[in-house]
């Protein structure tokens, strides 16, 4: 086996096969394992996907939600063992790859049309 193939194999062994196809504008629910003190629990984070960064093992999504009146953005490594599950809640209609314009919008203006796929 050529060496590079082996490296690729080793890297892909860590990737998750069951990830949904997430696109900018989609609404997702991400279940993350968080450590609180000495116990671990699963925390859900639901919001709009602002952008998707591909990079094999490095694949990231940035999710934005309004939490008690404050905009919160979290970036998740999709293949990380801390990310338990990623659920697609809704497909949003987005015409660009990075939806930074949503940051300036409040309320209903910050929602995207639903897209049927």
């Amino acid at each position: 086996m050529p060496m590079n193939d082996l490296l690729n194999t080793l890297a892909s062994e860590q990737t998750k096969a069951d990830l949904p196809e997430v696109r900018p504008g989609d609404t997702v629910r991400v279940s993350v394992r968080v450590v609180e003190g000495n116990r671990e629990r699963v925390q859900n984070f639901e919001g709009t996907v602002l952008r998707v960064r591909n990079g094999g093992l490095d694949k990231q999504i940035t999710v934005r939600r309004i939490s008690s009146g404050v905009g919160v953005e979290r970036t998740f490594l999709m293949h990380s063992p801390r990310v338990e599950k990623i659920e697609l809640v809704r497909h949003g209609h987005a015409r660009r790859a990075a939806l930074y314009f949503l940051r300036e919008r409040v309320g209903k203006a910050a929602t995207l049309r639903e897209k049927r796929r």
Partner: protein
Amino acid sequence: MSEETTVEGGSPPQTPQTGPTQAPAITKPVLIGRKLGMIQQFREDGSVVGTTVIAAEANVVTQVRTKERDGYSAIQLGFGRPKKKRLSKGALGHLKQLPPLEHLREVRLDDVAGFATGQEIGVDRFAAGDKVHVSGVSKGKGFQGPVHLHHFTRGPKSHGSDHLRRQGSVGSGTTPGRVLKGLRMASHQGADRVTVRNLQILKTDPSRALLFIAGAVPGGRNGIVMVRKA
């Protein structure tokens, strides 16, 4: 670097098997391997570590040197499985009944009792969490100027400057009338034997003879490295 690898005494030989006997355990195992390259690895806490993958198919003991005969005690390890025609007759004669081996390295041991030619030493000598020193030949950089090699400050770029990447003064005038020894100047950089100490083994894969080491290791891909326990 002066005398490398002083390894503490071994334990008595284990029960002999069919064919070559099992090489005895040593407290600080050493292995020759080939750097495959680097990948990313997730830790349990979700952090990502840059990881060097080293392929180290079983090393074969090719010779045992003893104090009485050679003046020092060591074992000679062989690594790599070249085609037979790639080796000289002399090298093949040295290996005798052993398979052809490309890279031979000696490891100094105080006690070589129990070692015999033909024994194999594998990746299973290391375990996840072990600290290791890794030696290899660093990437050659060619002949480099003082700015790259010693991080000297460059001169002005314009206004007739002829000093962009030159060093400054190399000393005084008539007294002492010479350039002091050891002054840092442009020179060849890289392709040196370098040891990186206290790297951590993230995991081992005995079925594929792989070592996963957190962090970087000297040399380029396919470089030959020596891994020894810290």
